[in-house]
């Protein structure tokens, strides 16, 4: 092979490398833009309150696999329904439904109403709500002293009745409209914007496939960096091409 042929072959090889470097670079750019934008959002999530806002899109909620439930067990106390789904407790008063986030691992135990106060007993606490289901107070069950007599407006007998284990107080909610409303409220308080951005950043939004694609793109970016440096070095070493 003559020196001219060698030079032509080398030039052809370089062109192929450059062409593929460009093509792969353009593809990786989409991934890099995603990384950069989501990275900025993650750096400032507190200021943007991403951890306090929830995804409202039904499509995204179903993408995450959040399912509606067909049956909801509730306690009926003084014409109010107390229903628990995960760590959320839902109150149904007529057509109005409101929610309350209980402490982790806290389970709804019983509920009753007296003198316009709704008492809700969970495994850990006694909660007091007004007629509009605004939280008046939360009293730890450990701090309740039955020897003191009156417990936040309940007599010792009334409190003992409330605290007595009785599986029968839970009944299936029969109103389909209420079940639907609770499901809607529940689903729209599951995925925070922060989780969505984290998953988009890591590729986990697309489950294990997304993570693998992210890994692959990360390797490609490393290769792009290397091929870019190699290509640049070759050009600056050539006296006929100036790339300063």
């Amino acid at each position, binding site marked *: 092979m003559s020196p001219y042929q060698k030079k032509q072959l080398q030039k052809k090889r370089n062109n192929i490398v450059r062409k593929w470097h460009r093509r792969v670079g353009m593809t990786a750019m989409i991934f890099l833009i995603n990384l950069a934008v989501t990275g900025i959002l993650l750096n400032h999530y*507190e200021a943007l309150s991403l*951890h306090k806002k929830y995804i409202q899109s039904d499509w995204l909620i179903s993408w995450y696999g959040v399912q509606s439930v067909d049956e909801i067990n509730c306690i009926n106390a003084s014409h109010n329904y107390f229903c628990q789904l995960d760590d959320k407790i839902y109150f149904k008063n007529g057509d109005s439904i409101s929610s309350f986030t209980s*402490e*982790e691992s806290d389970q709804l135990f019983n509920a009753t109403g007296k003198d316009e106060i709704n008492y809700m007993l969970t495994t850990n606490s006694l909660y007091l709500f*007004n007629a509009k289901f*605004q*939280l*008046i*107070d*939360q009293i730890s069950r450990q*701090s309740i002293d039955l020897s003191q007599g009156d417990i936040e407006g309940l007599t010792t007998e009334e409190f003992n009745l409330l605290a007595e284990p009785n599986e029968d107080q839970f009944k299936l909610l029969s109103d389909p409209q209420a079940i639907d409303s609770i499901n809607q409220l529940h689903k729209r308080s599951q995925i925070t914007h922060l989780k969505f951005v*984290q998953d988009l*950043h*890591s590729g*986990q939004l697309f489950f294990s496939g997304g*993570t693998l694609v*992210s*890994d692959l793109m*990360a*390797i490609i*970016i*490393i290769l792009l960096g290397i091929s870019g440096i190699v290509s640049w070095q070759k050009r600056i070493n050539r006296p006929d091409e100036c790339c300063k």
Partner: protein
Amino acid sequence: MMKAIYTIFILLATLASTSVDAKTFLTEKELLSQAFPEAGKTSDSKHNKQTLWLDDALQSKIENILSHPYPKLRIKYWKNEKKTVWILEEIGKVKPITFGFVITDNQVELARVLTFRESRGYEIANQSFYQQFNQTKLIQDYQLSKQIDGISGATMSVSAMKKIAKLALMLHQEVMK
């Protein structure tokens, strides 16, 4: 390199999402016995347990401090001459942190974390950090009279404790009027 950074990020994200059980550093009774050592064994009647109902005017002042209304309609507190004890909650990042504040003569006498439920930021439950709040007063615009140094990695917990210190001082002023 990217993969290593990536793996670290995923590990951190996993750690951040791991649920950690609530840690109780001090109980209500222990706080009361520290606040009122002269009362001896804790009992509500000895410490004069009282209730403060949060009306709209008070909630508005609270909102100026916390940037949101207090989630309860009433607050229980203990009062003895010039001293009040407050057990208040504020969300750090996602979960509420329970704080105990003893206020005497419009100054913080004792600041403590009672229960910490977050997965990160527990460094605030440290004696050296608590001490920064001692003798702190409320100055104009609900600001603390002393600079409270932050803790790296516990920014939101520190912010929550500073807010609750301001709230306890403001509520003390309200009940002492």
